[in-house]
Protein backbone atom coordinates (compact mmCIF):
# COMPACT_ATOMS: atom_id res chain seq x y z
CA UNK A 1 0.00 0.00 0.00
CA UNK A 2 2.89 2.34 0.57
CA UNK A 3 4.51 1.44 -2.68
CA UNK A 4 8.23 1.62 -3.02
CA UNK A 5 8.91 4.75 -1.02
CA UNK A 6 10.38 4.29 2.46
CA UNK A 7 10.76 7.95 3.39
CA UNK A 8 9.05 10.88 1.73
CA UNK A 9 9.90 14.41 2.82
CA UNK A 10 8.16 17.50 1.39
CA UNK A 11 9.01 21.09 2.19
CA UNK A 12 10.02 20.30 5.76
CA UNK A 13 10.75 23.37 7.90
CA UNK A 14 11.95 23.45 11.49
CA UNK A 15 12.87 26.54 13.46
CA UNK A 16 14.36 26.95 16.92
CA UNK A 17 13.44 30.47 17.85
CA UNK A 18 15.10 32.73 15.30
CA UNK A 19 17.29 29.95 13.90
CA UNK A 20 15.99 28.00 10.94
CA UNK A 21 17.51 24.55 11.22
CA UNK A 22 15.67 23.06 8.24
CA UNK A 23 14.53 25.32 5.47
CA UNK A 24 12.13 23.52 3.17
CA UNK A 25 13.79 20.17 2.61
CA UNK A 26 12.31 17.62 0.22
CA UNK A 27 13.51 14.20 -1.00
CA UNK A 28 12.50 10.56 -1.22
CA UNK A 29 14.23 7.41 -0.06
CA UNK A 30 13.19 4.31 -1.97
CA UNK A 31 12.53 1.01 -0.31
CA UNK A 32 15.73 -0.94 0.13
CA UNK A 33 17.86 2.10 -0.66
CA UNK A 34 21.01 3.17 1.17
CA UNK A 35 20.64 6.94 1.19
CA UNK A 36 23.40 9.21 2.46
CA UNK A 37 23.07 12.69 3.94
CA UNK A 38 26.34 14.52 3.60
CA UNK A 39 26.94 17.85 5.17
CA UNK A 40 28.87 19.72 7.80
CA UNK A 41 27.99 20.20 11.39
CA UNK A 42 25.04 22.58 11.56
CA UNK A 43 23.60 21.55 8.20
CA UNK A 44 20.41 20.38 9.89
CA UNK A 45 21.04 16.65 9.60
CA UNK A 46 20.32 15.88 13.25
CA UNK A 47 17.15 17.96 13.16
CA UNK A 48 15.98 16.02 10.12
CA UNK A 49 16.62 12.71 11.89
CA UNK A 50 14.76 13.82 14.98
CA UNK A 51 11.81 14.94 12.89
CA UNK A 52 11.68 11.59 11.11
CA UNK A 53 12.03 9.76 14.41
CA UNK A 54 9.01 11.81 15.61
CA UNK A 55 11.01 13.41 18.40
CA UNK A 56 10.26 16.86 17.01
CA UNK A 57 7.24 18.38 15.29
CA UNK A 58 7.82 20.28 12.05
CA UNK A 59 6.83 23.93 11.68
CA UNK A 60 5.80 23.40 8.06
CA UNK A 61 5.83 20.71 5.43
CA UNK A 62 5.19 17.04 5.86
CA UNK A 63 7.00 13.74 5.90
CA UNK A 64 6.14 10.06 5.83
CA UNK A 65 8.19 7.17 7.13
CA UNK A 66 7.15 3.74 5.93
CA UNK A 67 3.83 5.22 4.82
CA UNK A 68 3.05 6.81 8.19
CA UNK A 69 2.78 10.55 8.73
CA UNK A 70 5.37 11.79 11.23
CA UNK A 71 2.84 13.97 13.01
CA UNK A 72 -0.43 12.03 12.96
CA UNK A 73 0.96 8.51 13.07
CA UNK A 74 3.99 9.05 15.25
CA UNK A 75 3.31 6.03 17.42
CA UNK A 76 3.07 3.67 14.47
CA UNK A 77 6.41 4.95 13.17
CA UNK A 78 8.16 4.24 16.44
CA UNK A 79 7.86 0.49 16.17
CA UNK A 80 8.96 0.53 12.53
CA UNK A 81 12.15 2.56 12.66
CA UNK A 82 15.48 1.79 14.20
CA UNK A 83 17.13 4.99 15.34
CA UNK A 84 20.74 5.57 16.26
CA UNK A 85 21.33 9.11 17.52
CA UNK A 86 24.64 10.82 16.91
CA UNK A 87 25.84 10.42 20.43
CA UNK A 88 26.62 7.11 22.10
CA UNK A 89 23.18 6.09 23.27
CA UNK A 90 23.63 2.87 25.21
CA UNK A 91 23.89 2.29 28.93
CA UNK A 92 27.57 2.39 29.77
CA UNK A 93 27.02 0.59 33.07
CA UNK A 94 25.17 -2.34 31.52
CA UNK A 95 26.93 -5.22 29.80
CA UNK A 96 26.73 -5.88 26.07
CA UNK A 97 24.09 -8.57 26.43
CA UNK A 98 22.11 -6.62 29.01
CA UNK A 99 21.92 -3.66 26.66
CA UNK A 100 20.72 -5.85 23.85
CA UNK A 101 18.17 -7.65 26.01
CA UNK A 102 16.87 -4.35 27.31
CA UNK A 103 16.33 -2.84 23.88
CA UNK A 104 14.68 -6.04 22.68
CA UNK A 105 12.29 -5.95 25.62
CA UNK A 106 11.62 -2.28 25.02
CA UNK A 107 10.18 -3.23 21.67
CA UNK A 108 8.45 -6.29 23.02
CA UNK A 109 10.60 -8.85 21.23
CA UNK A 110 13.18 -11.31 22.43
CA UNK A 111 16.77 -11.35 21.26
CA UNK A 112 16.22 -14.83 19.81
CA UNK A 113 13.35 -13.66 17.56
CA UNK A 114 15.55 -11.54 15.32
CA UNK A 115 18.94 -12.96 16.09
CA UNK A 116 19.38 -13.96 12.47
CA UNK A 117 19.35 -10.32 11.39
CA UNK A 118 22.00 -9.14 13.81
CA UNK A 119 24.05 -12.32 13.93
CA UNK A 120 26.86 -11.29 11.57
CA UNK A 121 27.38 -8.12 13.61
CA UNK A 122 26.79 -9.61 17.02
CA UNK A 123 29.20 -12.45 16.39
CA UNK A 124 32.05 -9.95 16.68
CA UNK A 125 30.68 -8.72 19.99
CA UNK A 126 30.06 -12.18 21.38
CA UNK A 127 33.48 -12.53 23.09
CA UNK A 128 32.73 -9.36 25.08
CA UNK A 129 29.18 -10.31 26.01
CA UNK A 130 29.66 -9.61 29.70
CA UNK A 131 31.75 -6.49 29.31
CA UNK A 132 30.19 -3.16 30.25
CA UNK A 133 29.26 -1.17 27.15
CA UNK A 134 31.20 1.83 28.44
CA UNK A 135 34.43 -0.16 28.23
CA UNK A 136 34.10 -1.07 24.56
CA UNK A 137 36.14 0.62 21.85
CA UNK A 138 34.49 3.24 19.64
CA UNK A 139 33.96 0.84 16.77
CA UNK A 140 32.53 -1.87 19.02
CA UNK A 141 30.16 0.59 20.66
CA UNK A 142 28.78 1.56 17.30
CA UNK A 143 28.27 -2.07 16.33
CA UNK A 144 26.43 -2.73 19.55
CA UNK A 145 24.30 0.37 19.02
CA UNK A 146 23.48 -0.90 15.53
CA UNK A 147 22.46 -4.29 16.96
CA UNK A 148 20.22 -2.54 19.48
CA UNK A 149 18.64 -0.42 16.77
CA UNK A 150 18.00 -3.52 14.66
CA UNK A 151 16.76 -5.93 17.27
CA UNK A 152 13.06 -5.29 16.55
CA UNK A 153 13.59 -5.76 12.80
CA UNK A 154 12.69 -2.23 11.72
CA UNK A 155 11.86 -1.55 8.10
CA UNK A 156 13.66 1.80 8.13
CA UNK A 157 17.00 2.59 9.77
CA UNK A 158 17.84 6.16 10.74
CA UNK A 159 21.56 6.50 11.50
CA UNK A 160 22.86 9.90 12.53
CA UNK A 161 26.62 10.00 11.97
CA UNK A 162 27.22 6.45 13.16
CA UNK A 163 30.91 6.41 12.24
CA UNK A 164 32.13 9.73 13.58
CA UNK A 165 35.27 9.19 15.66
CA UNK A 166 35.57 5.56 14.58
CA UNK A 167 38.78 4.27 13.01
CA UNK A 168 38.88 3.46 9.27
CA UNK A 169 38.82 -0.31 9.69
CA UNK A 170 35.78 -0.29 11.95
CA UNK A 171 34.14 2.25 9.67
CA UNK A 172 34.70 0.07 6.70
CA UNK A 173 33.25 -2.96 8.51
CA UNK A 174 30.29 -0.88 9.60
CA UNK A 175 29.51 0.01 6.01
CA UNK A 176 29.81 -3.60 4.92
CA UNK A 177 27.09 -4.36 7.45
CA UNK A 178 24.89 -1.58 6.10
CA UNK A 179 25.25 -2.99 2.60
CA UNK A 180 24.15 -6.39 3.90
CA UNK A 181 21.15 -4.93 5.71
CA UNK A 182 20.09 -3.20 2.51
CA UNK A 183 20.14 -6.54 0.76
CA UNK A 184 17.70 -7.75 3.45
CA UNK A 185 15.30 -5.06 2.25
CA UNK A 186 15.87 -2.54 5.01
CA UNK A 187 15.86 1.09 3.89
CA UNK A 188 18.64 3.15 5.41
CA UNK A 189 19.06 6.88 5.83
CA UNK A 190 22.55 7.60 7.07
CA UNK A 191 24.36 10.85 7.76
CA UNK A 192 28.12 11.14 7.54
CA UNK A 193 30.79 13.78 7.46
CA UNK A 194 33.18 11.40 5.64
CA UNK A 195 33.14 11.94 1.91
CA UNK A 196 34.65 8.53 1.16
CA UNK A 197 31.61 6.94 2.73
CA UNK A 198 29.33 8.80 0.36
CA UNK A 199 30.71 6.64 -2.42
CA UNK A 200 29.13 3.60 -0.75
CA UNK A 201 25.58 5.01 -0.87
CA UNK A 202 23.02 4.42 -3.61
CA UNK A 203 22.20 8.08 -3.61
CA UNK A 204 23.41 11.02 -1.59
CA UNK A 205 21.99 14.38 -0.63
CA UNK A 206 24.48 17.18 -0.05
CA UNK A 207 23.15 19.50 2.58
CA UNK A 208 24.28 22.75 4.07
CA UNK A 209 22.62 25.25 6.38
CA UNK A 210 19.22 23.60 6.37
CA UNK A 211 18.91 23.11 2.64
CA UNK A 212 19.70 20.36 0.17
CA UNK A 213 22.22 21.36 -2.48
CA UNK A 214 21.74 18.24 -4.60
CA UNK A 215 20.28 14.76 -4.53
CA UNK A 216 22.16 12.41 -6.84
CA UNK A 217 23.91 9.11 -7.20
CA UNK A 218 27.56 9.39 -6.14
CA UNK A 219 28.65 9.16 -9.76
CA UNK A 220 26.04 11.72 -10.74
CA UNK A 221 27.38 14.11 -8.13
CA UNK A 222 30.88 13.77 -9.50
CA UNK A 223 29.67 14.18 -13.08
CA UNK A 224 27.99 17.43 -12.13
CA UNK A 225 31.39 19.00 -11.46
CA UNK A 226 31.87 21.41 -14.34
CA UNK A 227 35.43 22.54 -13.89
CA UNK A 228 38.99 21.55 -14.50
CA UNK A 229 41.02 20.18 -11.62
CA UNK A 230 44.79 19.95 -11.18
CA UNK A 231 46.82 18.40 -8.41
CA UNK A 232 49.84 20.41 -7.32
CA UNK A 233 52.66 18.95 -5.26
CA UNK A 234 56.05 20.08 -4.07
CA UNK A 235 58.32 20.28 -1.09
CA UNK A 236 57.09 23.59 0.32
CA UNK A 237 53.41 22.77 0.61
CA UNK A 238 52.40 25.77 2.69
CA UNK A 239 54.16 28.22 0.41
CA UNK A 240 52.61 26.60 -2.67
CA UNK A 241 49.16 27.26 -1.30
CA UNK A 242 49.69 31.00 -1.24
CA UNK A 243 51.49 30.99 -4.59
CA UNK A 244 48.65 29.11 -6.28
CA UNK A 245 46.04 31.44 -4.87
CA UNK A 246 47.91 34.44 -6.26
CA UNK A 247 48.06 32.90 -9.76
CA UNK A 248 45.62 34.22 -12.35
CA UNK A 249 43.21 31.58 -13.63
CA UNK A 250 43.16 29.63 -10.35
CA UNK A 251 39.62 29.79 -8.96
CA UNK A 252 40.30 27.85 -5.80
CA UNK A 253 43.15 26.01 -4.14
CA UNK A 254 42.90 23.74 -1.13
CA UNK A 255 44.98 20.97 0.47
CA UNK A 256 43.91 17.53 -0.64
CA UNK A 257 45.91 14.75 0.94
CA UNK A 258 49.47 14.78 -0.27
CA UNK A 259 48.68 17.39 -2.92
CA UNK A 260 46.79 20.66 -3.35
CA UNK A 261 43.75 20.67 -5.60
CA UNK A 262 43.52 23.61 -7.99
CA UNK A 263 40.21 24.43 -9.58
CA UNK A 264 41.09 26.48 -12.64
CA UNK A 265 39.61 28.38 -15.53
CA UNK A 266 39.74 26.84 -19.03
CA UNK A 267 42.59 29.06 -20.19
CA UNK A 268 44.88 28.02 -17.30
CA UNK A 269 48.32 26.83 -18.47
CA UNK A 270 49.76 24.33 -15.99
CA UNK A 271 53.20 24.17 -17.58
CA UNK A 272 53.71 27.90 -17.42
CA UNK A 273 52.62 27.91 -13.78
CA UNK A 274 55.04 25.11 -12.94
CA UNK A 275 57.95 26.95 -14.54
CA UNK A 276 57.03 30.08 -12.67
CA UNK A 277 57.00 28.23 -9.35
CA UNK A 278 60.40 26.69 -10.02
CA UNK A 279 61.72 30.11 -10.91
CA UNK A 280 60.42 31.44 -7.63
CA UNK A 281 62.52 28.87 -5.78
CA UNK A 282 60.05 26.06 -5.08
CA UNK A 283 61.41 22.52 -5.18
CA UNK A 284 60.13 19.29 -6.76
CA UNK A 285 57.05 21.01 -8.16
CA UNK A 286 54.64 18.66 -9.91
CA UNK A 287 51.30 19.45 -11.50
CA UNK A 288 48.88 17.07 -13.20
CA UNK A 289 45.25 16.90 -14.25
CA UNK A 290 42.99 14.88 -11.88
CA UNK A 291 39.39 13.69 -11.88
CA UNK A 292 37.18 15.30 -9.22
CA UNK A 293 35.69 13.39 -6.30
CA UNK A 294 32.61 14.03 -4.23
CA UNK A 295 34.67 16.09 -1.84
CA UNK A 296 35.67 18.50 -4.61
CA UNK A 297 32.04 18.90 -5.60
CA UNK A 298 31.06 19.53 -2.03
CA UNK A 299 33.74 22.12 -1.47
CA UNK A 300 32.77 23.89 -4.65
CA UNK A 301 29.09 23.96 -3.78
CA UNK A 302 29.79 25.20 -0.29
CA UNK A 303 31.99 28.00 -1.57
CA UNK A 304 29.19 29.13 -3.84
CA UNK A 305 26.68 29.30 -1.04
Amino acid at each position, binding site marked *: MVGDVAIRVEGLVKRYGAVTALDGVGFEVRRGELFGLI*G*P*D*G*AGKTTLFRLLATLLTPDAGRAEVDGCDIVREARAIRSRVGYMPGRFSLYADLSVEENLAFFAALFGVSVRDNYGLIEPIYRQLE*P*FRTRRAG*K*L*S*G*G*MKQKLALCCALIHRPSVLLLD*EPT*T*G*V*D*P*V*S*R*SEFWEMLARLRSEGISILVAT*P*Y*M*DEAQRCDRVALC*DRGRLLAVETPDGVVASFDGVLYALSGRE*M*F*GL*LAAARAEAGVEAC*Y*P*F*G*AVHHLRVAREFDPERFRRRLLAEGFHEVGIRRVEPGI*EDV*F*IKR*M*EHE
Partner: protein
Amino acid sequence: MNDREAVISVRELTKCFGAFTAVDHLSFEVFRGEIFGFLGANGAGKTTAMRMLCGLSYPTSGWGRVAGYDIATQGEEIKRHIGYMSQRFSLYDDLTVLENIRLFGGIYGLSRREILRRAVGLLRRLGIRGEAHTRVRSLPLGWKQKLAFAVATLHRPEVVFLDEPTGGVDPLARRQFWELIYEAAAGGTTIFVTTHYMDEAEYCTRISMLVDGRIQALGTPAELKCRFAAESVDELFRRLARGAKRAQE
Protein backbone atom coordinates in the same frame (compact mmCIF):
# COMPACT_ATOMS: atom_id res chain seq x y z
CA MET B 1 66.83 14.21 8.13
CA ASN B 2 68.78 13.12 11.19
CA ASP B 3 70.82 16.30 11.22
CA ARG B 4 67.74 18.04 12.44
CA GLU B 5 66.93 18.62 16.07
CA ALA B 6 64.67 16.06 17.73
CA VAL B 7 61.91 17.75 19.72
CA ILE B 8 60.34 14.50 20.83
CA SER B 9 62.47 11.43 21.34
CA VAL B 10 61.22 8.21 22.82
CA ARG B 11 63.12 5.00 23.65
CA GLU B 12 61.44 1.71 24.52
CA LEU B 13 58.49 3.53 26.03
CA THR B 14 56.12 1.06 27.70
CA LYS B 15 52.94 1.39 29.70
CA CYS B 16 51.21 -1.54 31.37
CA PHE B 17 47.88 -1.63 33.14
CA GLY B 18 48.14 -4.75 35.25
CA ALA B 19 48.85 -7.62 32.91
CA PHE B 20 47.80 -5.59 29.89
CA THR B 21 50.49 -3.81 27.88
CA ALA B 22 48.84 -0.78 26.31
CA VAL B 23 52.02 0.71 24.85
CA ASP B 24 54.75 -1.76 23.98
CA HIS B 25 58.36 -0.53 23.65
CA LEU B 26 57.82 2.50 21.43
CA SER B 27 60.89 4.18 19.97
CA PHE B 28 60.77 7.14 17.62
CA GLU B 29 61.84 10.72 17.12
CA VAL B 30 59.98 13.77 15.92
CA PHE B 31 61.99 16.67 14.51
CA ARG B 32 61.44 20.41 14.78
CA GLY B 33 58.85 21.72 12.36
CA GLU B 34 57.54 18.28 11.44
CA ILE B 35 53.89 17.35 11.18
CA PHE B 36 53.93 13.90 12.73
CA GLY B 37 50.82 11.77 12.15
CA PHE B 38 50.21 9.26 14.93
CA LEU B 39 47.77 6.76 13.44
CA GLY B 40 46.15 3.65 14.80
CA ALA B 41 42.81 1.94 15.28
CA ASN B 42 40.62 2.66 18.33
CA GLY B 43 42.35 0.93 21.21
CA ALA B 44 45.77 0.64 19.60
CA GLY B 45 47.27 2.67 22.44
CA LYS B 46 47.39 6.14 20.89
CA THR B 47 45.76 7.97 23.77
CA THR B 48 47.90 6.19 26.36
CA ALA B 49 51.08 7.08 24.50
CA MET B 50 49.98 10.67 24.02
CA ARG B 51 49.19 11.03 27.72
CA MET B 52 52.70 9.95 28.62
CA LEU B 53 54.22 12.40 26.15
CA CYS B 54 52.16 15.22 27.66
CA GLY B 55 53.39 14.38 31.15
CA LEU B 56 49.95 13.26 32.29
CA SER B 57 50.91 9.68 33.10
CA TYR B 58 54.10 7.88 34.04
CA PRO B 59 55.68 5.27 31.78
CA THR B 60 56.07 1.77 33.23
CA SER B 61 59.49 1.54 31.61
CA GLY B 62 61.55 3.24 28.93
CA TRP B 63 62.12 6.95 28.69
CA GLY B 64 61.17 9.91 26.57
CA ARG B 65 62.03 13.58 26.20
CA VAL B 66 59.66 16.26 24.98
CA ALA B 67 60.94 19.76 24.27
CA GLY B 68 64.10 18.85 26.19
CA TYR B 69 62.36 17.64 29.34
CA ASP B 70 62.11 14.14 30.73
CA ILE B 71 58.55 12.83 30.62
CA ALA B 72 58.93 10.81 33.81
CA THR B 73 60.39 13.50 36.05
CA GLN B 74 59.66 16.88 34.47
CA GLY B 75 55.95 16.67 33.73
CA GLU B 76 55.31 20.22 34.92
CA GLU B 77 57.95 21.76 32.63
CA ILE B 78 56.60 19.76 29.71
CA LYS B 79 53.11 21.09 30.27
CA ARG B 80 54.46 24.63 30.08
CA HIS B 81 56.20 24.00 26.77
CA ILE B 82 53.52 22.14 24.84
CA GLY B 83 50.08 22.96 23.49
CA TYR B 84 47.25 20.47 23.64
CA MET B 85 43.96 20.35 21.82
CA SER B 86 41.39 17.59 21.64
CA GLN B 87 38.07 17.27 19.96
CA ARG B 88 36.29 16.79 23.26
CA PHE B 89 37.57 19.60 25.39
CA SER B 90 38.87 22.67 23.77
CA LEU B 91 37.22 25.93 24.76
CA TYR B 92 34.67 27.14 27.26
CA ASP B 93 31.36 27.40 25.47
CA ASP B 94 29.88 29.98 27.78
CA LEU B 95 32.79 32.40 27.54
CA THR B 96 33.36 34.77 24.65
CA VAL B 97 36.18 34.33 22.16
CA LEU B 98 38.27 37.02 23.84
CA GLU B 99 37.56 35.69 27.34
CA ASN B 100 38.79 32.26 26.28
CA ILE B 101 41.98 33.74 24.83
CA ARG B 102 42.56 35.73 28.01
CA LEU B 103 41.95 32.70 30.18
CA PHE B 104 44.36 30.40 28.39
CA GLY B 105 46.91 33.16 27.95
CA GLY B 106 46.72 33.75 31.69
CA ILE B 107 47.08 30.03 32.44
CA TYR B 108 50.35 30.00 30.52
CA GLY B 109 51.56 33.07 32.35
CA LEU B 110 51.47 35.64 29.55
CA SER B 111 51.19 39.28 30.59
CA ARG B 112 47.93 41.11 29.95
CA ARG B 113 49.51 43.31 27.30
CA GLU B 114 51.07 40.35 25.58
CA ILE B 115 47.76 38.45 25.60
CA LEU B 116 45.96 41.39 24.07
CA ARG B 117 48.63 41.85 21.42
CA ARG B 118 48.54 38.18 20.45
CA ALA B 119 44.74 38.07 20.59
CA VAL B 120 44.47 40.85 18.01
CA GLY B 121 46.88 39.08 15.70
CA LEU B 122 45.12 35.77 16.19
CA LEU B 123 41.67 37.13 15.47
CA ARG B 124 42.92 38.90 12.36
CA ARG B 125 44.61 35.75 11.10
CA LEU B 126 41.45 33.69 11.60
CA GLY B 127 39.35 36.44 10.05
CA ILE B 128 36.99 36.59 13.03
CA ARG B 129 37.81 39.98 14.45
CA GLY B 130 34.12 40.84 14.48
CA GLU B 131 33.42 37.87 16.72
CA ALA B 132 35.69 38.78 19.63
CA HIS B 133 32.75 39.25 21.95
CA THR B 134 30.67 36.36 20.66
CA ARG B 135 30.17 33.41 22.97
CA VAL B 136 32.05 30.40 21.67
CA ARG B 137 28.84 28.37 21.89
CA SER B 138 27.31 30.19 18.94
CA LEU B 139 30.27 29.78 16.58
CA PRO B 140 30.15 27.10 13.87
CA LEU B 141 32.12 23.97 14.79
CA GLY B 142 34.75 24.63 12.13
CA TRP B 143 35.52 28.06 13.58
CA LYS B 144 35.60 26.68 17.08
CA GLN B 145 38.24 24.15 16.09
CA LYS B 146 40.38 26.77 14.40
CA LEU B 147 40.05 29.03 17.40
CA ALA B 148 40.91 26.14 19.71
CA PHE B 149 44.06 25.48 17.74
CA ALA B 150 45.03 29.13 17.79
CA VAL B 151 44.47 29.25 21.54
CA ALA B 152 46.48 26.06 22.07
CA THR B 153 49.41 27.72 20.29
CA LEU B 154 48.97 31.14 21.90
CA HIS B 155 51.93 30.66 24.22
CA ARG B 156 54.12 29.65 21.23
CA PRO B 157 54.77 26.08 22.43
CA GLU B 158 57.49 24.01 20.83
CA VAL B 159 55.16 21.05 20.31
CA VAL B 160 51.41 20.93 19.83
CA PHE B 161 49.53 17.71 20.49
CA LEU B 162 46.29 17.40 18.53
CA ASP B 163 43.96 14.56 19.43
CA GLU B 164 41.52 14.00 16.57
CA PRO B 165 41.15 17.72 16.05
CA THR B 166 38.84 17.60 13.04
CA GLY B 167 36.20 15.03 14.02
CA GLY B 168 32.80 15.89 12.55
CA VAL B 169 34.00 18.99 10.75
CA ASP B 170 33.01 19.63 7.14
CA PRO B 171 35.55 19.25 4.31
CA LEU B 172 35.97 22.95 3.75
CA ALA B 173 36.54 23.74 7.41
CA ARG B 174 38.89 20.78 7.74
CA ARG B 175 41.07 22.21 4.99
CA GLN B 176 41.13 25.63 6.57
CA PHE B 177 42.15 23.92 9.78
CA TRP B 178 45.01 22.13 8.08
CA GLU B 179 46.21 25.37 6.58
CA LEU B 180 46.64 26.64 10.11
CA ILE B 181 48.67 23.55 10.94
CA TYR B 182 50.84 24.02 7.85
CA GLU B 183 51.41 27.60 8.83
CA ALA B 184 52.39 26.71 12.40
CA ALA B 185 54.75 23.99 11.16
CA ALA B 186 56.31 26.34 8.62
CA GLY B 187 56.94 28.69 11.56
CA GLY B 188 58.93 25.98 13.37
CA THR B 189 56.27 24.52 15.66
CA THR B 190 56.27 20.73 15.82
CA ILE B 191 52.87 19.12 15.33
CA PHE B 192 51.93 15.73 16.76
CA VAL B 193 48.48 14.74 15.49
CA THR B 194 46.09 11.80 15.61
CA THR B 195 43.27 11.55 13.09
CA HIS B 196 40.77 9.12 11.67
CA TYR B 197 40.75 10.85 8.29
CA MET B 198 43.31 9.03 6.23
CA ASP B 199 43.45 11.79 3.62
CA GLU B 200 44.64 14.03 6.44
CA ALA B 201 47.41 11.56 7.15
CA GLU B 202 48.77 12.47 3.74
CA TYR B 203 49.27 16.06 4.89
CA CYS B 204 51.80 14.83 7.43
CA THR B 205 55.55 15.00 6.98
CA ARG B 206 55.84 11.53 8.47
CA ILE B 207 53.35 9.07 9.86
CA SER B 208 53.56 6.17 12.28
CA MET B 209 51.13 3.29 12.36
CA LEU B 210 50.40 1.91 15.80
CA VAL B 211 49.05 -1.66 15.98
CA ASP B 212 48.58 -3.45 19.31
CA GLY B 213 50.69 -0.86 21.11
CA ARG B 214 53.66 -1.17 18.73
CA ILE B 215 54.78 0.87 15.77
CA GLN B 216 54.30 -1.29 12.68
CA ALA B 217 55.33 1.30 10.15
CA LEU B 218 57.06 4.67 10.28
CA GLY B 219 58.01 6.97 7.44
CA THR B 220 56.79 9.57 5.01
CA PRO B 221 53.39 8.74 3.45
CA ALA B 222 55.06 8.25 0.05
CA GLU B 223 57.71 5.89 1.44
CA LEU B 224 55.18 3.76 3.27
CA LYS B 225 52.80 3.54 0.33
CA CYS B 226 55.73 2.44 -1.78
CA ARG B 227 57.05 -0.06 0.77
CA PHE B 228 53.68 -1.71 1.36
CA ALA B 229 52.58 -1.32 -2.27
CA ALA B 230 49.43 0.52 -1.19
CA GLU B 231 47.47 3.00 -3.29
CA SER B 232 46.68 5.27 -0.36
CA VAL B 233 47.30 5.66 3.35
CA ASP B 234 43.77 4.43 3.84
CA GLU B 235 44.61 1.11 2.20
CA LEU B 236 47.87 0.91 4.12
CA PHE B 237 46.04 1.51 7.37
CA ARG B 238 43.44 -1.14 6.70
CA ARG B 239 46.00 -3.70 5.78
CA LEU B 240 48.09 -3.14 8.91
CA ALA B 241 45.21 -2.65 11.35
CA ARG B 242 43.38 -5.75 10.18
CA GLY B 243 46.39 -7.73 11.31
CA ALA B 244 45.77 -6.57 14.88
CA LYS B 245 45.63 -9.49 17.26
CA ARG B 246 44.63 -7.60 20.32
CA ALA B 247 40.90 -7.73 20.97
CA GLN B 248 39.52 -4.25 20.65
CA GLU B 249 39.53 -2.60 23.99
